């Protein structure tokens, strides 16, 4: 019993465990702050958009009086606008914890959580592979350019990645769609799969899916890889001038080996960079989905924002942010595994 406790205490003292706990607490706090912002915004903005929304719905909904009353009741209940704000807040937090994100009114009576979970897989299926591929490709190209700095490859890659890194995904998407689908007719004009097949694990569906997948995937990969390449190039240039490279060089280590070292150490900050940029990548790819009429969360967000469907806005953003937090946590875990300095508590946050 005592021994077990000691083991437990020992575990808690290990730097990596401490760091992990700190990280989880931090992410939890951030989520809490975000949820609070979601709650507070409509109540802080002058003119109380929620109340206005309710009034709007009642005026514009073309439905039977019973339905209007049902919607009104549901919304009043969910937003609890007649109660004091602290009660509203506690109720709101409770609902968020239970995963009850409320009812969409532009797609009444569907639940927001149900809607988000139908659309989210499409987004993740596009976003995760594209992010990983662009990260790997960008870093590899950037490392090679930095290693042969000023060489022909570097001189060709640098301006291209510079421009790509400043190209919004969605604009590149427009250009690619115009060139390859409209002009050259090589790819479909939009959607995630051919309209005549039903999503299933058939060869036909998968082939159709990949066919529709190519351009959205390429838009994100190309535009994102530019940024990674530029970052990696600079890191490698810095790293190549570090003392340990000089020492290893003077011991006769081959250039190949030195490049391996430099790559290993330069890639570490890029892992952190990935965690930091997940939000931007997500934002960019949501808009890219719109360009391709891809049935992902981007469509949901757009619909919610343009129709002022506040329950859906709140719910979608809460889930998107939760997804980001989980991804962030995963990236941090990977970082801890590959950087020994973190494991041994040498560098903290």
């Amino acid at each position, binding site marked *: 019993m005592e021994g077990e406790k000691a083991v437990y205490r020992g575990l808690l003292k290990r730097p990596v465990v401490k760091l992990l706990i700190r990280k989880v607490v931090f992410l939890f706090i951030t989520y809490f702050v975000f949820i609070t912002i979601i709650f507070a915004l409509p109540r802080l903005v002058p003119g109380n958009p929620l109340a206005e929304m309710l009034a709007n719905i009642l005026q514009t909904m073309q439905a039977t009086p019973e339905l209007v009353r049902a919607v009104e009741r549901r919304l009043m209940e969910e937003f609890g606008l007649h109660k004091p704000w602290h009660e509203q807040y506690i109720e709101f937090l409770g609902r968020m914890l239970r995963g009850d994100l409320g009812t969409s009114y532009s797609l009444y009576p569907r639940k927001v959580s149900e809607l988000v979970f139908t659309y989210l897989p499409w987004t993740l299926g596009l976003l995760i592979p594209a992010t990983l591929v662009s990260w790997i490709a960008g870093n590899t190209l950037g490392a090679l350019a930095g290693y042969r700095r000023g060489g022909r490859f570097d001189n060709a890659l640098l301006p291209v990645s510079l421009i790509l890194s400043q190209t919004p995904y969605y604009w590149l998407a427009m250009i690619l769609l*115009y060139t390859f689908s409209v002009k050259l007719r090589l790819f479909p004009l939009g959607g995630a799969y051919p309209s005549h097949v039903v999503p299933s694990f058939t060869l036909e569906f998968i082939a159709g899916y990949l066919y529709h997948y190519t351009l959205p995937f390429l838009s994100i990969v190309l535009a994102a890889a530019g940024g990674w390449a530029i970052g990696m190039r600079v890191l490698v240039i810095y790293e190549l001038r570090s003392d340990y490279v000089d020492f290893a060089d003077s011991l006769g280590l081959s250039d190949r080996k030195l490049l391996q070292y430099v790559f290993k150490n330069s890639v570490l900050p890029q892992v952190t960079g990935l965690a930091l940029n997940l939000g931007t990548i997500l934002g960019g790819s949501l808009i890219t989905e719109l360009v391709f009429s891809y049935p992902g969360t981007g469509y949901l967000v757009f619909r919610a924002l343009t129709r002022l469907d506040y329950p859906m806005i709140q719910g979608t953003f809460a889930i998107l942010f939760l997804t980001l937090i989980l991804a962030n946590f995963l990236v941090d875990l990977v970082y801890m595994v590959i950087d020994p300095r973190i494991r041994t508590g040498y560098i903290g946050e």
Partner: protein
Amino acid sequence: MPSRILLEIFKIKKFTISLAIILLLLFIGLVGPSIYPTDPFEAVFRPEDPPSSKNPLGTDSYGRDVLAQLLHGIRMSLYIGFTASLIALAIGVAIGSIAGVKGGLTDEVLMSVTNVVLALPSILLMLLIAAYFKYRDPMLVSIIIGVTSWPWVARAVRAQLLSLRAREFVHFSRMAGYSDFRIAVEDLLPNMAAYIFMALVLLMSGAMMAEAGLSMIGVGITRGASLGIMLYWAQMLEAVRRGLWWWFVPPGSVLVALSASLLMISTALDEYFSPRLKGR
């Protein structure tokens, strides 16, 4: 900044070229609408006409002149980019320098707040805030972008201050009895001028991108033209699928040119001021 440094900076080719591009676009944005006085919002032309001598960049689905929209759009995007980046810079520099100069508990609290805001995805936050305003004028959009993009500036300014603080001249000022605040304003910030300028440049390119993103998803400015609004209408009215390239190619190209030039300027300055990147 001593003029010798300025002179040397102007010798860096990519700096000068990028600056020229920006100044050109700035000039176009400021003067263009008066030289080319066509009203960007008046639907008086034949709709969806390709570029012609009458409408150099064609017309949109409502029969409005795209070039006129582009000129007004450049002006608007630059305005929002500049205003938003000033707001973010002001918040970031204030928080960063208070944290860096005061140290101790103040530093810890401010940096915790900064880290939390940094962890919130700024683009989602912007969308969320913008969604609750029915009318969004350029100032409001600038404020929304500004208040969500400062955290990295605060962190960077603080880090710079801490490294500057360790240098001798701060020590002398302190011995001479200057207050922390005076040291920050009179000694430290001028030493960071180049650095702060770089931050402004990066913020500005980020803010123009953010404006376009907000507009694309439907929560940009509610009146007027901006590069983002042009792209929004091109997207809404299926310009891509209907082959109306003159509607979305120009605003996007200008946006990329502006943003890439700003990035190049900051890279060139960075290389100039941090000798590790220069060929020693």
